[in-house]
C-alpha cells in the first residue's frame, strides 16, 4: 500500500517538474528580453552614475561625485520642490476628477455612449499635440485663445503660464483634461462590477444616493483607487514633456521638474553620468514612496 503510494507521489512529482520546465521555457524569452532591455540597462545606469565619462564611454570610477554635483547644482532644489508641488496639485486636481466622472458615468441613463466617448476623447490625441494646443490657449497677451474668449466677456487678458504661481496648477489642469477620461473608464468598469443586489438592498433600507455612494461604491473602489493613486504619483513624479514644451521649465525655474533636469543633463549637456545619477535617485525615491504607501494602506484595509 505504502509502496504504491510513494510510487504515485514520485510520478506526480516528476510530472510536476516536467510541467514546471515547460512553464519556465515559456517565460524564458520574456526573462531574456527583460534582462536585456530592463535589468541590464538598470544596472548599467547605476554603474554609469558612479563613473566619469567621455560621451557615453566611462573613464574612471569617481564614487559619489556625480551625486554630490547634482546636490550642488543650482537647479536641483527648484526641480525637487517643483516635482512635489506637481504631485500635490495632481492629487488635489487630478485624483478625484476621474472618480467623480466614473460615478457620474455609471449613473448616467441617457446618451451614456456619447458621454463616455466625450470624456475619453482627449486621451486619443497625441500628447505633444495636446500640450501644444493648450500652449496656444494659454498664450498671454491678446492673441491667446483663452484671452480672446475672456475679452468677449469683458475680462482683462491674463498672463496664464507666465505667472510663476499659476504655472504648475495650469500644467496639471492640462494633464487632467487629457488623462482623466481613461482613468474614469477604469473606475466605471469597477463600479459596474459591484453586485447590484447591494444597491437594491440599500435602497430598500432607505439609503439615499450619497449614502449608497459612500457605503457601497467607495469601499468597493478603495483598493483600485489605492493602486491608481500610486500609479499617479509615480507617473507625475516623472513629468517631463508637458513643462518642457509649455514653459521649458520657466519662468525662472517655476516649473522645472526632476525629469527635465535629467533631460537637460543628458540631452543638453551630454553629461550622461549625472543624468544616470539623478535617475538612480528618482528610482530610489519612488521605491520608498511606493513602499510606505503600501504599508500605510494595508493597515487601513483590514
Amino acid at each position, binding site marked *: 500500500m505504502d509502496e504504491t503510494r510513494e510510487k504515485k507521489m514520485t510520478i506526480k512529482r516528476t510530472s510536476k517538474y516536467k510541467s514546471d520546465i515547460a512553464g519556465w521555457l515559456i517565460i524564458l524569452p520574456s526573462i531574456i528580453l527583460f534582462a536585456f532591455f530592463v535589468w541590464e540597462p538598470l544596472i548599467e545606469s547605476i554603474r554609469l552614475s558612479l563613473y566619469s565619462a567621455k*560621451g557615453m564611454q566611462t573613464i574612471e570610477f569617481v564614487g559619489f561625485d556625480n551625486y554630490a554635483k547634482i546636490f550642488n547644482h543650482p537647479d536641483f532644489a527648484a526641480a525637487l520642490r517643483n516635482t512635489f508641488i506637481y504631485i500635490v496639485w495632481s492629487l488635489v486636481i487630478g485624483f478625484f476628477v476621474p472618480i467623480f466622472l466614473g460615478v457620474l458615468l455609471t449613473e448616467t441613463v441617457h446618451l451614456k455612449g456619447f458621454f463616455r466617448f466625450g470624456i475619453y476623447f482627449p486621451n486619443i490625441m497625441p500628447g505633444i499635440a495636446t500640450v501644444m494646443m493648450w500652449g496656444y490657449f494659454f*498664450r*498671454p497677451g491678446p492673441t*491667446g485663445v483663452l484671452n480672446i474668449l475672456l475679452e468677449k466677456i469683458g475680462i482683462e487678458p491674463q498672463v496664464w503660464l*507666465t505667472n510663476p504661481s499659476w504655472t504648475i496648477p495650469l500644467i496639471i489642469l492640462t494633464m487632467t483634461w487629457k488623462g482623466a477620461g481613461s482613468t474614469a473608464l477604469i473606475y466605471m468598469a469597477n463600479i459596474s462590477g459591484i453586485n447590484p443586489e447591494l444597491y437594491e438592498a440599500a435602497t430598500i433600507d432607505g439609503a439615499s444616493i450619497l449614502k449608497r455612494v459612500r457605503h457601497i461604491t467607495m469601499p468597493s473602489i478603495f483598493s483600485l483607487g489605492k493602486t491608481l493613486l500610486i500609479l499617479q504619483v509615480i507617473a507625475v513624479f516623472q513629468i517631463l514633456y508637458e513643462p518642457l514644451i509649455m*514653459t*521649458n521649465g520657466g519662468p525662472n525655474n517655476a516649473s522645472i521638474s526632476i525629469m527635465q533636469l535629467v533631460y537637460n543633463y543628458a540631452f543638453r*549637456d551630454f553629461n550622461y553620468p549625472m543624468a544616470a545619477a539623478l535617475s538612480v535617485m528618482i528610482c530610489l525615491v519612488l521605491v520608498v514612496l511606493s513602499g510606505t504607501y503600501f504599508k500605510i494602506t494595508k493597515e487601513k484595509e483590514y
Partner: protein
Amino acid sequence: MKKICILMCFVLMISLLSGCGKKEEPATNDGAVTEENTNTEAEGTDAAAEKVTLKLGIWPEDTLTDDIKLHEGYVKTFNAAHPNVEVVPAYYKYATDTFVSLAESGNLPTIFESWYTEPQKLINGGFVADITDILEERGWLDAINPSISDLLSKDGRIYGIPRDGYALGLMLNVELFEEAGLVDDNGVPKYPKTWTELAETAKAIKDATGQAGICLLAKDNAGGWHFSNIAWAFGATLTEQGTDGKFTANVDSKEAIAAMEYVKSLKWEYDVLTPDPTNEDWGTGFVNLGTGTAAMYIAANDAVNQPTQVNGLPVDKLSLVPLPAGPDGQQYSLSGGTPYMFSKDATKEEIEAALDYLEIMGKAPVATEDAIAGMKADNQNKINNGVPVIPRFPCWINEDLLAAEKAVTDEFNNVDMKLYNDYYEAIKKEGNLRLEEVGSAQDLYAELTKVLQAVITDKNANVPALMKQADENYQKLLDTNVNK
C-alpha cells in the same frame, strides 16, 4: 502537447538570439572596416584608388528642392574629379537629442553642421575627428580666422572648420519702420543708435502699428546669449579670468544690473515686447521678424535667409544694422562661427573627400575655378529664393579667397547695400568684435535666461537680488566644472 510547447519555446529562443546576433553583426563589421582603412592609411599611397563613401550630412532637407538641385550640380563636378568617391546624401539636422546615439552607434555622416554653441561640448565628448594634420597638409590652418579657430580647438588641436562666421547686429523689418514713418527720404530706416533710443523707437512702432517693437528671447540659452551682448554695451564683463587661470563670475556688477533693469523696463515701462518672451527662441524670433509681428530682432549676417526665405519677408524689406550702444557709447558685436565637423569614425580619405566637396561648394579657403563657380551657383540660388546676397563674415582670411568672394557678392548683389553698410562699417572698427564670455558660457546663459524670465514676468522683480543669485549659481558651476 508538451513537446509542441517545448518546441515552440525553442523556436522563440532561437529567433530571439538570432535577432540579437544580427543586431551586433554590422557593428563588428564596421569596426573591421575602419581598422582596415586605418591600415591602408598607414601604408599610404594606393588609398586614392580605393572606393570611398562620403556621407554628406550637409545635404539640404527634402523640402528645399532648389538647394538639392544646387547640390546635385556640386556632386556632378565633384565626381568628375573624384570618380572613386561615392557621395551619399545623408541629410542630418543637428539636434542634441539625436546626436549622441548616432555618434556612439557609428552612424554619423562624414561631415555635418552643428550649432555655434556645440563645438567644445562635442570635442570634450570625443564625438568628432581631430583634423589638425589634414588641415596642415592642405595649408588651411593659417587661413582660418584665428578668433573662430579658437572656438573649434582644444589643447592646440582643431576639430572643425567654420561654415560661416557671424557677428550679432540688429535686424529690422523695414515694412514696419515704413508703416511707423521711421524712414528717411531714401527709404532707409532711421534705426536706434543707443539702447535708450531703441526703447523709444520700439514704442513708436508699437504705438503706430500695434506690433511688438523688439523680439526679446527668454525661452532658452539664446536669451542669455543675446543679453550678454546688451550687458557689454552697458559696460559689464560677466566672467573674469584671474592670473591663475581661474574664472570668477561677475554677473552682479552694477553695469550688468543696469542692463537687466533696462530689459525689465522694455516690458514694464515701454511695453514693447512680444506677448510671451518666455516662449521665444532663436527660431521664433525670426518668425516674428519675418511675419511682421516684431520690428527688431538681435541677429547675425549668417541668418538673413531666416526672415526672408523661411518666413516670407520680401528680400528688400530686411535691414541689418549695428547693435545699439550703451549709455557710455560702448558698442560691441558678439561674434563667433558655426562649424562643419566630422564624424570621429570617418577615415582620413573620407574627411579629405568632404573637404574637397567643400572646395567645390566655395566654402573652403581656395579660390579655384570650381570654387568660384560654386559660390556663383549658391548666390544665384539665393537670388531665386529671395535671400539677400551680402558679404560673408570673413571666417577664412586668405586674400585670394576674400577677393574672389567680394567679386562674386558684388556681381550677384540683390539688395540695397544702404540697408547693410552701417553694420559692416561697425564690425570693421577696432575692438568692436567680441567673442562670447569665457569660463562656461552655456551655464552663464542658462543663469541669465532665468533672470530674464523673472524680470519680464514679475513687475516687482528685485533685479539686484536676482543677479546676485545668478552670480552665486554661476560661480558654483564654474567651481565644480571648470576651476579645478
